[in-house]
Structure formats: structure tokens, C-alpha cells
């Protein structure tokens, strides 16, 4: 069991790309801009990156998933 020191300054440290993509590809306000990737093509993004980030877009609840469900 380990946790980063709660007093160390997190800002400035480079964030993990996977955490960033979790937020930038599924978070943020979605507007239908003139070049639309945001809404219509999020499926495309999901497909394109499937090999790298399987998780994008899945709605699974880890607390209810088999991995934690049956020990």
C-alpha cells in the first residue's frame, strides 16, 4: 500500500497521458463546432484508440464488475 505524499505539490508534475485522455476525450463541454469530431466522431475516436485505451467510453461500474464482484 502506498500513496503519494499528500503534501507534495502535484501541479508541475507531468500528468499521465491516460489520465489526460480520460478527461479530454470523454470530458469537457461538447459543442458541435465546424469541424466536428466531438460528438459524431467520438465513436471513431473510441475505435481508433481501442488498442491503446480500451476504457474510453465504457460505462462499466468497477464496483459491480466481475473483477471485484466475486472474490
Amino acid at each position, binding site marked *: 500500500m502506498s500513496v503519494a505524499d499528500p503534501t507534495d505539490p502535484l501541479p508541475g508534475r507531468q500528468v499521465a497521458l491516460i489520465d489526460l485522455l480520460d478527461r479530454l476525450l470523454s470530458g469537457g463541454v461538447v459543442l458541435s463546432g465546424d469541424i466536428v469530431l*466531438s460528438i459524431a466522431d467520438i465513436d471513431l475516436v473510441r475505435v481508433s484508440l481501442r488498442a491503446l485505451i480500451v476504457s474510453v467510453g465504457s460505462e462499466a461500474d468497477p464496483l459491480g464488475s466481475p473483477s471485484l464482484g466475486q472474490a
Partner: protein
Amino acid sequence: MIDREGLTYVYAVVPDTPGLRAALSDVRGVSGSLVSLLGEHAPTEGEERPDPLAFVTSRVAQDEFDERTLKARFEDLEWLEDVARAHHEVVQTIARHDTVLPLRLATLYENDDRARGALAAQRHVFAERIALLRDRSEWGVKLYIRSTGPSEDRDGAADPGGTTTLSPGKAYLRRRRAQHSAQESHYRNAREAAQRIEALVSRFTTYRVRHPAQHGELAGPEENVLNDAYLVPDGRTESFRAALAALAADLDGVRVEVTGPWAPYSFAMPPPEPAPHGDAREGPSR
């Protein structure tokens, strides 16, 4: 500056203040271009608009960000990372100075006028959202289960040390059983940790977004079983982090990781229609 060849890339919605304009005056975004605030049209006479908003934008090259190129580029992880980090850098810089409502990666308009139209069309939604997000930050809380060493598992090979008198087959089964039992205990501990997190965070916030657990090449070697985002009042972040740090100290095989502060990416959108039962994307965590 009129750049007929360029597109307007929008990073975020912000309160339009002189302080923020000054703070962003030499910040560079995607493709290294300077960002600027794109304010609203002046209010028509008699219209009340006490809190003006702006888009934070920069110019990007049309041939790099047109629809066809963009689709191809999104499969290029190196390019995607560059754009994502540049976008994030701008958003985090804003977050250090004022409330920020981040936009989804790669929101693009043909020109500033078109972008300004989009800002005007949804300014009330944006203003409400910014009011909700004010003085709060997003924190990521992830729960990992340590793998029970595949190194201990030699796949049935005989123990070269010769410390065991068991047949290779029986030794293999015994190792597998021990490994399985350790893994089960780690899962039990993870479930306990998840319950503790649930109980603990409800003291700090009612806003949670549950991201899918992380798998795949970009994820680390440990199994990620919880990938939550919480919106925490800025005055309470230290106690939030301290409480989480101590949370699973007695639970073997489990690791809690806290990331942040993040700009409120996960809380930028109003919640979708609530699910008939079960887990809403955002809402009271308990």
C-alpha cells in the same frame, strides 16, 4: 489578425476579466500559437449582462485540423499526445487564475465569428456551469490491485532449487493455488478500499464521475479497478488528500492513487439522462 487559411481552436469558456486577459497574454497553445480571449459581442442596449464570458482560442493551420486530417491524426498517438498536452497546459494555466469550463479536445470553428456565435448561443448554460464550478477542483482517485507475481509462476517448470519433493505437476498446482488465494485476498481488500473511499468522499463532495477502469497499453502493469473523479471545494483539498492517503494503509495488495488538482474536465457537461437504476454519471456519491 485575419488568417483566412486558419481555423479557430477553442480551449475553454472563461469569465472575461482584465486579470485573465493579462495572465494569458503570452501563453501558447496547440501548434505553439499564442492564445487569446474571444469575448462576447457588446450587449444590446438595455440587456443585462453582468458577467461577461469569453472563449479562450488560438489559430491553428487548416491543413492540420480539417476534418479528414483530424480523423487520421487521432490515430497517431504521438500527435494526439502533443495536442492533448498543449490543450491541457492552456486549461491548467487558466485554472490557476480563474474558473475554467474546459471544452472537449479539438473543438474547431472556421473563424472567430462562428466561434463567437457558438458562445452567444449557449452563454446561459456556460454561465450556470461556471457558477457551479467556481472554487472547486477535480481530483482523480484510482484504485489498483497489485498483481500476484507472475514471476512466481513458472508455468509448471520443475523447481531448479530442488527444495520440494513434490512432483512438478503438484508443485505447479500448489503455486497456482497460493497465487490464486493471494489474488482473491487482494480483491477482497480492494472491495474494502472501494467502500472506504465511497464513505470518505461523501464527507467532501456530492459530485462524482466514474470513469471506466483503465486497461490497455497506456495503463500500467497493475490492475486498475476504480477510476473516479470528484469535484472538491478548494478549501478542503488538503484534508481530502490526507484522508485518502491513510485510507488503505492496512490493506495488502491495494494501492490508492490521487491525481490533481485537475480543471473540472469531468464535470463540464451537464449529466446525461439519469439511468433508470444504478449509477448516474454525476450526482450524489451516496
